[in-house]
């Protein structure tokens, strides 16, 4: 699709444009109600993709305002507050892809505060991923290899020429770039030796009284300068050399391609899609922005609506955005969203292991499902929530009444072009005793009706998909 086609349709949008835009915004961002989607559809799909890929075109949100209105969190250095600020951005930022990519990279380079136990270091890693996530993989890996939280997480402080610690060397190959089966134990040992001396300048004990700034430091005296052989290359390799070698391996593009597809396209991506993304990674020298452009405009992406189970972050933030909550920094309670996502299985900045989160179907077990359903029901069942009342008012505009089936369809549309099977729609109507024509007034009563419909829709199976 080119912008010529977009201009031809610029004066109106079609249902299918809104549906496609809903899918793009759910995946590249955190979803939106129909009102916002209609405006985006007028701009045109390719324009919106371009805007998503260029967050710098849009103003940054002033996160610090949150602290003005939550003075109990002034100068709060805790990880919970960092994640709260991140959540506030996910809900309200005009640069959503930047924050979505931070989640992608964080899930791949899973580093957890439960071991790092230094909140500023965790925040710095998150900011590094946020600020570099659309750039080049080489840069990202170089910065990751110097990231104090990562260095501590994978024991680089204990990786010395005289006593090699393999943790980072192993996980760099196994989980962060190439994937198992594409290297040998000898490659792991070589990579570990190449990174000896890459450490942080904070030594134990790290703090008796507060957090000290941690910086990457390279200790030459700790570095193993002997020749290493890795993946067919031999030399006195240092850490950046290892990254260069990794980027030469076809396995790297395949591995990253697979993870980009699992995150953005579908839970079980097709080999053809993975290969296409991998080819673009190689052709663009691992330019993430160029690769995502190819991905978002591909047919395999456009055809993948609702083929992913929403992650807890997507479920919570998406539901909050639908309900129109926490749009203003003075709305209290936003920090409670953080443990909520944790109870659904995704505590940002605290993944269960270096392997990250098990996604797809594994987001759904009986405990998680109960949390997801209960959370969404509580938020969307509130008729005073700004998003819920806005949706109700839009449906009511210019109408005296609406037939029950059309009302359920209208709510599904307003929530963001959602879908629901015929049997489930009947269950919604019948459980709420919606029969015949439903009057659109008085407004309060109608908002209550719409809230109940939203709540019931959000309990469905289909609502777990995105």
């Amino acid at each position: 699709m080119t912008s010529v086609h977009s201009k031809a349709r610029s004066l109106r949008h079609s249902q299918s444009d809104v549906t496609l835009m809903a899918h793009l915004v759910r995946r590249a961002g955190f979803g939106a109600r129909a009102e916002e989607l209609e405006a985006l559809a007028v701009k045109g799909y390719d324009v919106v993709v371009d805007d998503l890929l260029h967050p710098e075109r849009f103003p940054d949100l002033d996160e610090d305002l949150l602290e003005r209105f939550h003075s109990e969190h002034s100068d709060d250095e805790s990880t919970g507050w960092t994640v709260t600020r991140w959540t506030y951005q996910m809900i309200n930022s005009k640069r959503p892809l930047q924050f979505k990519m931070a989640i992608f990279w964080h899930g791949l380079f899973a580093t957890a505060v439960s071991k790092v136990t230094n909140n500023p270091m965790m925040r710095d890693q998150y900011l590094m991923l946020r600020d570099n996530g659309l750039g080049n993989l080489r840069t990202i890996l170089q910065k990751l290899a110097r990231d104090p939280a990562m260095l501590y997480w994978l024991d680089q402080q204990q990786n010395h020429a005289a006593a090699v610690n393999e943790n980072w060397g192993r996980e760099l190959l196994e989980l962060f770039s190439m994937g198992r089966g594409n290297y040998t134990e000898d490659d792991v040992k070589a990579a570990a030796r190449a990174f000896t001396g890459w450490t942080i300048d904070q030594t134990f004990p790290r703090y008796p009284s507060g957090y000290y700034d941690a910086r990457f430091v390279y200790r030459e005296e700790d570095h193993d300068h002997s020749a290493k052989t890795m993946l067919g290359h031999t030399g006195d390799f240092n850490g950046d050399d290892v990254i260069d070698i990794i980027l030469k391996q076809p396995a790297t593009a395949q591995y990253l391609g697979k993870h980009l597809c699992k995150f953005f396209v579908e839970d079980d991506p097709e080999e053809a899609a993975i290969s296409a993304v991998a080819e673009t990674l190689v052709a663009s020298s691992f330019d993430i922005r160029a690769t995502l452009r190819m991905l978002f405009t591909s047919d395999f992406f456009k055809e993948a609506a609702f083929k992913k189970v929403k992650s807890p972050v997507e479920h919570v933030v998406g539901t909050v955005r639908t309900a129109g909550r926490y749009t203003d920094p003075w709305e209290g309670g936003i920090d409670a969203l953080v443990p909520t996502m944790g109870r659904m299985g995704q505590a940002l900045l605290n993944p269960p292991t270096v392997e990250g989160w098990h996604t797809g179907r594994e987001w759904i077990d009986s405990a998680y499902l109960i949390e997801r359903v209960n959370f969404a029901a509580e938020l969307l069942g509130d008729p005073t929530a700004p998003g819920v009342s806005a949706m109700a008012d839009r449906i009511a505009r210019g109408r005296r009444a609406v037939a029950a089936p059309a009302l359920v369809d209208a709510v599904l549309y307003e929530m963001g072009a959602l879908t629901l099977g015929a049997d489930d729609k009947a269950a919604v109507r019948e459980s709420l005793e919606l029969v015949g024509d439903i009057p659109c007034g008085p407004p309060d009563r109608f908002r209550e009706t719409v809230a109940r419909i939203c709540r019931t829709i959000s309990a469905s199976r289909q609502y777990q998909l995105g």
Partner: protein
Amino acid sequence: MADNRTNGKTGNGAGKAKPPVLVVLQLSGGNDFMSTVVPFGDPHYFDFRKTVGIPEKDVLKLNDSIGFHPVMKPFKQMYDEGKVAVIQGIGYPTPDRSHFRSMDIWHTAEPTKIIADGWLGKTVRDLDPQKQNVCTGVSFGQGLPRAMYFSGTPVISVAHLEGYGLLTSLPGTEQRAAVNAFTRMYAPEEFREASLVMGHIGQTGRDALVGADMLKVAPQKYSSNVEYAGDALSQSLKGIAQVHLADIGTRIFYAQHGGYDVHGSQLQSQPKLWSQVSRAVNDFFADLRLHSAADNVVMMIFSEFGRRVRDNGNGTDHGSGGGAFLIGDCVKGGLYAEYPSLAPAKQASGDLAFNNDFRSLYSTLLEQWLGLQAAPVVNGAFEQFKGMIKSAA
């Protein structure tokens, strides 16, 4: 569906009035067996463990050559009462030193390929083939472990027992309408097959509804003198005790304790971990005994691998062969298999060499304790331990 139960040849537990219960406690991260059961009598021990070695005078000795870590006093007491079986040198062929892969191997009992079928998921399936009790398997903690997963087999995953349930925050009439809609929306498809994921979500939802109703009685019925510690493991085991004592028919319980990946700071971490485990497990069995409900419970403690023989100056890296424990009134306590030698010639690439396959321990539990056929669950025939499971007096 074929019934896996060994008709006529029942396990020691299965023949009694109270059906046998298995509690599996997973230590995540690769527990250092050499610091849990310390081989102070091995001439190489202190050479290889220059930094994290435990001085002989501190070890809680089991005999002249091995003993427990000094913080494990409650554990040692259970051992002295004959209730703890120590399975030394447990592992599997071609060990994998990746947490993710090795834990999956223990969870699926399949070292050679990646599968999603958990051994306990299959066990729950075989214990309750007609799916009459969705609470047959209950896992405590955040997220269902792969070990408990088997497609089509309901298992419950609970984070906190109190207040567990669907749409419990809605007012009365609203809740009824919402649960009514939920029940219909999650009903199995009548005419077409659901997609895999929709089928999974549907089954999960139905099981959640039924399970919540059954589980909510457990904390209501519970009363005890035992004061569990506040840490997550103790609270999980307390939850397990509550559900077990509520007698709703749960046969398999799962709990997890993390933090064992001691590449560094091992001298700080290891004692804290095993302090918690020793106390929590001791409190758990004391609670059960208080209610005369301990005699049909066996606990298995395992980890995905042991750690390297030589320490790295501050901790230990991933290894292979390790150890496991069985605890219970029906366990014949003592030392099983052999403590792997630390002699360099006998090591496996710098690790403890395993001398018994973990599927042997699984098979022992499946057949001798649970009264099931082991081969379908562990994908093969493995020699079982003799005399490890005994019938109660």
